[in-house]
């Protein structure tokens, strides 16, 4: 088994002829909380969507370079299988509105045949909701629908849904961009507690968030990785002026 969850080498990606990623090279170790920082428009979402091939649904994408996820070239494996192992949580909370809170969390587990009995499923749903600190808030209304939840709760529900799918890599695209500080802290705490179970790659444009949670960080700027390393090193003594500016909030 490869030491790395993700290995990317000289990834170039164009959408309709516009180069968005211009030679990204990056490795992410297994079971770390990796934060990819970068100002808006630097290509973070695009990069994240490449890792589990969600980018395949975008028209006019051309790609070159090597992307290995969990030891395999992503273009040599079945994309649906890849996405079951590498699950993405989007920036906007998107729970399934026609399903109860319980069913939202249970669906991917059912589809991926992670559990065999109803009992195991109940346990898994509870585990996932506890992980995101939502269990206490919803345990009495598992049969109600997500529209009854606040934005932050919905986002945590989406995170629980992703966890219940038992992914090997969890991709998070600015999961706290649109929610309040209390929910943000809860999500960050959940992420820290997941370190040993799953590789987390989170994207953010806010340096403070990276400071709070990251083991390892990289800065993406204009489609290239300008700096990368253990979180403490990068925050304490950035090697590049661009990084300094980004951390000061000047980008």
């Amino acid at each position: 088994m490869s030491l790395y969850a993700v290995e990317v080498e000289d990834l170039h990606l164009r959408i309709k002829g516009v180069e968005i990623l211009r030679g990204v090279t990056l490795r992410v170790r297994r079971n770390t909380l990796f934060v990819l920082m970068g100002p808006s428009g630097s290509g973070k979402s695009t990069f994240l969507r490449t890792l589990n091939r969600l980018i395949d649904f975008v028209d006019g994408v051309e790609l070159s370079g090597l992307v290995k996820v969990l030891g395999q070239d992503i273009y040599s494996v079945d994309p649906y299988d890849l996405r079951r192992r590498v699950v993405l949580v989007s920036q906007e909370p998107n729970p399934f509105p026609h399903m109860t809170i319980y069913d939202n969390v249970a669906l991917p587990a059912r589809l991926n045949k992670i559990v065999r009995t109803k009992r195991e499923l109940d346990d898994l749903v509870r585990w996932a909701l506890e992980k995101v600190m939502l269990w206490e808030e919803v345990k009495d209304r598992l049969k109600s629908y997500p529209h009854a939840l606040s934005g932050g709760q919905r986002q945590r529900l989406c995170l629980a849904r992703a966890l219940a799918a038992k992914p090997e890599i969890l991709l998070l695209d600015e999961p706290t961009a649109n929610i309040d500080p209390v929910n943000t802290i809860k999500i960050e705490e959940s992420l820290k507690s997941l370190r040993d179970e799953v590789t987390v790659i989170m994207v953010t444009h806010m340096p403070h968030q990276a400071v709070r949670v990251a083991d390892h960080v990289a800065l993406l700027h204009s489609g290239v990785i300008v700096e990368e390393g253990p979180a403490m090193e990068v925050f304490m003594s950035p090697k590049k002026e661009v990084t300094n500016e980004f951390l000061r909030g000047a980008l």
Partner: protein
Amino acid sequence: MYRSMTSRKVRNYIMVIVMVAVSFLYVTPLISIIYTAVERGGAVLVETGLKFLTDLPPTPLSTSVGGIAPALIGSLLASALAILITTPIAFLMAFYVTEFPRHSLSRVCEVVVRAFSGVPSIVVSMFIYSTVVMSMGTQSLLAGSLALAIVTLPYTYVYFTSAFRSIPESLREAAMSLGMNRVRALIHVYVGVLRRSLLTGLLMSYVRAFGDTAPLLFTMGFLMNAVFAGVLQQSNAVPLMIFVYALSPYENFHRVAWGATLVLLIIYLALFTVSRVLVRGVKL
């Protein structure tokens, strides 16, 4: 500046008046038709009561009005059979075309549906007559249903495609992000989210089939002496009965036609209301 403001206001007023007048021109005949149907048909229904729905039609010279049972049963069954045939086809086509808009098969689907929707329904009736009716040796409920199915297909298809196109991109992404393939996303997410629009489409297609006359002219037959004779036997339909009876010279037939018209309107309104009220929408 001031002048141009006022002239724009004046133009605005004129446009509003024109729009109101045009809508009035459109709505007036509609309201007057409904009014007449309610007035004349209502009289018939009050006189006969529920028997109008369960009795056989009158003979020309009888004084009684009788009922429209063969037509009602024929219409209910033929429309149901028609949408039973079209729904799976329209559903799969609509799904395929919205998922793969660029595939050549999608273009073929679009062209075929457009061609279908352009064919006059009387031609469809002739076509089914020369194939199904000729080879079976009789007009039948089945032949009528097939003709209705061909005529309804484009409507069902359009309802379904517009439903599928309305799936929020965020939900598509949610399904795909969890590793669902398109079929799983369809079954577990899209159908649930779209249940209201899909069911409305279904009911509207049913209503559509229920009200159509021309496809049935050469295919359905005109069953009068029994309520139902079998799927492979002649049947009847409400609009067909209205058409034939309204053109007849007999006064009591005219009254049956008005009664049947009102029944048709009521069924239409009922199905429309059902689709709006019973099917709860999904709160996003």
